[in-house]
């Protein structure tokens, strides 16, 4: 049912020409995705999705819209070729899902590798009730370090592109002088 909602919202986003409404629908899309994660018992992921996808991303897109205007302009052609590409890529992806293990299948590869050890040992090794935090910050510390570096680098990149806030204002002050 939730997935059905997601599909409807996604189609609406693609069809809409009013960018403001599309941004709002993006927020709804993220919330629905978060609800799906909750129903899969992935509460930490759902939390992140709701905070980042529905919260911050929507605000940043709105801030962008305030700069570029709220209506999509210059739609070229009818886009049959892109539609065909999207259609066949989607078909390929759906075909690929037939190789997936079922949800909750204990013999799935993801449950056979290091996961049982983490679940069994993390209580005594790390002593933190939330295994997600243990895995994220300790067992997979390198990965998280990489993620933080990516976030930092992305922030620096955006600041370089848009001109760091404050630097531009200072320049203008100098011009006035």
């Amino acid at each position, binding site marked *: 049912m939730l997935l059905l909602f997601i599909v409807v919202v996604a189609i609406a986003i693609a069809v809409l020409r009013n960018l403001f409404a599309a941004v709002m629908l993006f927020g709804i899309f993220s919330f629905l995705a978060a609800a799906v994660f909750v129903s899969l018992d992935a509460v930490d992921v759902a939390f*992140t999705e709701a905070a980042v996808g529905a919260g*911050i991303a929507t605000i940043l897109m709105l801030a962008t819209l305030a700069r570029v205007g709220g209506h999509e302009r210059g739609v070229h052609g009818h886009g049959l070729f892109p539609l065909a590409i999207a259609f066949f890529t989607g078909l390929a992806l759906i075909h690929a899902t037939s190789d997936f293990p079922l949800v909750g299948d204990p013999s799935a590869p993801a449950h056979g590798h290091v996961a049982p050890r983490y679940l069994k040992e993390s209580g005594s090794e790390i002593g933190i009730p939330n295994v997600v935090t243990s895995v994220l*910050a300790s067992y997979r*510390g390198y990965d998280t370090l990489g993620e933080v570096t990516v976030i930092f680098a992305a922030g620096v990149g955006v600041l370089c592109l848009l001109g760091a806030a404050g630097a531009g204002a200072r320049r203008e002050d100098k011009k006035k002088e």
Partner: protein
Amino acid sequence: MGHHLVLRVICKLLVPLILLFALYVQFHGDFGPGGGFQAGVLFGAGFILYGIVFGLGHFRSVVSPALLRTVAACGLLLYLLVGVAGMLLGGNYLDYSVLRENPASGQHLGIFLVELGVGLTVSGVMISLFYAFADRRFRE
């Protein structure tokens, strides 16, 4: 900005609660869902709400962009230094067990510091991004 009285009062009520909840998520991440990423975003969201409602001029006097950039860099640095501290104390890079006598409490300390670094970087970057987008409009 003088007209939105309801908005401003509600915002003043909400921002402390949002920040408090962000801190709760940050420090309760060991026991429930949450952690540095979520807390950083929530913390940033509280500030951004303040910035939207009260205007960027006001916002600038609360947090300066230079401070935000410093905070973002310090978070990443904290993470890296925790890793180096583990090496200096005779363990592997990012091995927290050697930070304290008892490996488990060392892990506690390491995870706490690392999550703090994540939270600082994420909130600093998020508010900086908001600044970068909104400030351009402000100037033009």
